[in-house]
């Protein structure tokens, strides 16, 4: 249970980091590239390939992160669902036992 809570917090932190990354990276990259190209520090072709590589790396990383996170969430959901079913069955049993006791 504690491991789950710790892992849930970890995923929440990762989501926040992805959110920040998505919010800042495109603008930073665009502005940096424009400045570097305007001052002839890098060529447009070079900036294009850097951007393309960054885009590809981000896409692949995000894809695997999403797959593992979804897998983890489904596992947690299944476990929680199983636990709730067990509780439900036990409550039913207790109700039946209480009814028997009342009758006596």
């Amino acid at each position, binding site marked *: 249970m504690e491991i789950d809570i710790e892992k849930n917090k970890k995923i929440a932190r990762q989501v926040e980091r992805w959110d920040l990354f*998505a*919010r*800042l990276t*495109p*603008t930073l990259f665009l502005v940096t590239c424009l400045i570097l190209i305007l001052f002839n520090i890098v060529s447009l072709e070079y900036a294009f390939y850097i951007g393309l590589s960054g885009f590809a790396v981000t896409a692949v990383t995000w894809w695997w992160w999403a797959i593992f996170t979804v897998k983890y969430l489904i596992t947690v959901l299944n476990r929680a669902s199983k636990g709730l079913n067990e509780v439900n069955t036990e409550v039913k049993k207790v109700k039946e036992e209480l009814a028997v006791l009342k009758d006596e």
Partner: protein
Amino acid sequence: MNNKSYILVKAATNIISGLSMATLIILGVLYIGFNNAFVFNNAGIAVTNNPVTGGQINFILEGSREHKCVLTRVHSDAYDDATGESYQFDFARKIYIRSDDYLGSDTGVVDHQWAMPVPDGMGPGVYRVTLYSEFDCTYLLFKKRKIQMFDNISLIIG
């Protein structure tokens, strides 16, 4: 930072980030299109006065041009497959018949006709002409040196 300012900053960064991403994608797609485009599309060069009997060979170039491109270098040879001889055309002596814009950069439909003198020593026969041209092309903030070749232009000297 209070809650309202935080929401405003978050919304602003969301919009700026989205616009930046859209700009990057649009520029990337435009760059790929520009990079892969030919100088002339659906273009061909032919000799209009075959068989050439006078001292002048008339050429025509038809096609279309999508981007602004300025000719920086041009080179043309005529090969006689029967004898293996080749002759170089002198572009310094070229005269325009129909258009003065082969060197220019106008976009749209291209219909140029120009003439060049028959190279010295070129005898009667069937020749295969090749034309090699280099251009400096520009589009928005993109610049690229492009090469376009035309070959198998049939030339008959009478």
